[in-house]
C-alpha cells in the first residue's frame, strides 16, 4: 500500500484526575481502603485503554487535607501508572483541590484535540474551605464544563449535597455513590475509573450552548452491596 498522506497521527488525550480526601477523619480503615481500591482499579483502567485505542488515557491525582497538592502531577499514561499510598491527617480543603484541577484544565494547558476529562472526587466529610467559588470556576472554564465529574462518598458523614454540586447535571441522571464499607468502595472506585472513562473516550459532538453540563452520557452506577458485610469492613 502507498504511504499514507498526512503528518503524524495520534490518539486523543483523555485526562483522568483523582481528587482524594486525605483529611484526619480518613485515617485508619478509610484511607487503607481508598489506597487499596485505587490500586485495584488500575488493571481495569488499562483494559479500558486497550478497548478504546483512539483514547490516550493519562492519569493524575490530587490529594487534599490542610491545603491541596498534586500527588501525581505529570499526566501519566495509564499503562505505566502506579499508585503510591497516601496518608490521612488535617482538614478538608476541597476548594483548593478543585482550584488545582482548574489550573490543569485551563484551555492553554489542555490539548486542543483532547477528549472530555474525567474527575473523580472521593471524600468522607465536609469542605473546610471555600468550595463554592472553586466549583463556580470549574464549571465556568470550558474544559471544566465539559468534564465528566463523579463523586464518591465514604461513610455516612460525607456531604452528599457538595458531591452532587460537584457532579453537576441533573440529580435524576447520576447521583453521588455512597460507600459505607470497604467492599462497596472498591466496587464504586472500579466503576468510576472505568465506565465514565469509556464514555468519555467516545464522546459525541453537540450543539454549542444546548446544555451547560458535560452531557457525556454515563451509564448508571452499581448499587451498594446487599449481602452481609464483615463488620470490620464497615466505615
Amino acid at each position, binding site marked *: 500500500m502507498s504511504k499514507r498522506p498526512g503528518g503524524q497521527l495520534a490518539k486523543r488525550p483523555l485526562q483522568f484526575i483523582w481528587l482524594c480526601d486525605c483529611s484526619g477523619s480518613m485515617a485508619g480503615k478509610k484511607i487503607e481502603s481508598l489506597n487499596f481500591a485505587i490500586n485495584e482499579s488500575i488493571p481495569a483502567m488499562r483494559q479500558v485503554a486497550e478497548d478504546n485505542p483512539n483514547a490516550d488515557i493519562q492519569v493524575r491525582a490530587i490529594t487534599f487535607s490542610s491545603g491541596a497538592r498534586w500527588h501525581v502531577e505529570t499526566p501519566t499514561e495509564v499503562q505505566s501508572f502506579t499508585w503510591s499510598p497516601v496518608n490521612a491527617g488535617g482538614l478538608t480543603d476541597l476548594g483548593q483541590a478543585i482550584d488545582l484541577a482548574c489550573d490543569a484544565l485551563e484551555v492553554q494547558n489542555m490539548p486542543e484535540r483532547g477528549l*472530555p476529562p474525567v474527575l473523580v472526587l472521593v471524600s468522607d466529610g465536609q469542605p473546610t474551605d471555600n468550595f463554592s467559588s472553586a466549583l463556580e470556576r470549574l464549571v465556568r472554564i470550558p474544559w471544566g464544563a465539559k468534564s465528566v465529574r463523579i463523586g464518591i462518598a465514604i461513610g455516612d458523614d460525607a456531604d452528599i449535597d457538595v458531591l452532587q454540586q460537584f457532579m453537576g447535571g441533573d440529580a435524576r441522571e447520576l447521583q453521588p455513590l455512597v460507600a459505607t464499607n470497604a467492599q462497596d468502595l472498591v466496587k464504586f472506585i472500579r466503576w468510576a475509573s472505568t465506565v465514565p472513562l469509556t464514555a468519555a473516550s*467516545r464522546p459525541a*459532538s453537540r*450543539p454549542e450552548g444546548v446544555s451547560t453540563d458535560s*452531557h457525556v452520557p454515563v451509564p448508571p452506577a452499581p448499587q451498594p452491596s446487599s449481602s452481609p458485610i464483615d463488620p470490620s469492613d464497615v466505615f
Partner: protein
Amino acid sequence: MLRNKWIGVTETEIGLKHKRAGRSNQDAIEYKKIQYKGIQYKELQGVSAGFMAVSDGHGSDRCPKSDIGSKRAVEAALSVFETLTLDQLSTLFSHAPEERRAFELARELCPRIVANWREMIQKEEGGFSTSCEQNISSNSYLAYGATLSVVFRCNSFTIFMKLGDCEILWVDQEEKVGRPFGRSIEIVGEDTESLCMPNADQLMQCCVRRDNPSVQFYLVCSDGVEKAFVDNSAFEILAEDLAKMVKTREGLSNLKNNLKSWLKEYSEFSGDDVSIGLLFAKPSDRSHCGGLYKKHLSMSRQKKVCMKSKKSFVSSFKSQSKACIDKEVTGSGGVTANQ
C-alpha cells in the same frame, strides 16, 4: 462553465464509537457538477459549477436522528445551488466579476439553506404540530442536529460556507495551505455550531474568493479527520500530500485505490466517522508540459491550432511533452509547470 475540467472525489468511513453504539455513519458527503441547463438559463449558454458539501451529524443520545440530519443538510445546500436564478448565475459567471455582489449573493443563500433544511426535517417528522417559530425556540430540530461545510466553485468565484467543525482547506501552486475561515479556538471539546441551533442562519459563515489559477485543489472534511492528527500542522500536511498526489494520473489512481483504507486508519485514531471530499483540476489540464506550450503560444492560438489540426497538435505536443518531462527530471531550466 468551468474553464479547466475539475474532478470531485468523496469517501467516508464509519467510526469505531458509532460501530460500537450500533449507530450508522453520521457523516454525509456529496460532490456534484451542477449543469445549469434549461430554458431559464439559455442566456448563459450552459454553464456548470462544482459543488462539494460535507455534514457531520452529532450522533448523541439527544440527536438520535442526526444521520438523517446530515443527509438532509447536504441535500438542502445542493438544492439551493441547483436552483440559482439567472440573475444570480450572471453575477457568479460574470466576465467582469464583482466580488461584493457575489458575497452579498452568497450571504443571502445561507439562511435559505438553513430554511431548506428545517423544511426537510419537518417533512421527516410528518410536520411538527407547532409553528415553525415554536419549533425553533423549543429546538425540535435537535434530534437531527448536524454541521455543514460547502464549497461551490464556478468560473469567476468560489463560495465557501461553514457551520460547525467540518473543515475546508485549499492548497496553492506553491503548496501553501490556506483556509477561508479561521480555526475557532473558543469552542473546545466536542461543542460545535449546528443547523439545529435557533440562530443557525446567522451563525453560518460565508466567504467568496475570486477564481485564482494558482489554487486548483480544495479539501473538505469532517472533524473526525482533523482529530486523527497530532496537531494542526500534521493535518495540513494531509492537504499538501493529497494536492501533490492528484497532480498526476498515477497519483490519482493511487488515491482512488487507497483512500478508503487511509480513512479507516484516520478513524482508528480519532474514533469518529471520517469523510473527505477533494475538488481539484484534472491532471491532464495541469500537466507538466502545459507550461512549455504556453511559453510559445497564447491561449487563443492554442485553441485554434487544436481545432484546425488536432492530429499534428497531438503528435507535436507529445514530443514536446517528452522533452519537457526530460528537462524537469534532469532539473534543467526553461520550463514552468502550468498549474
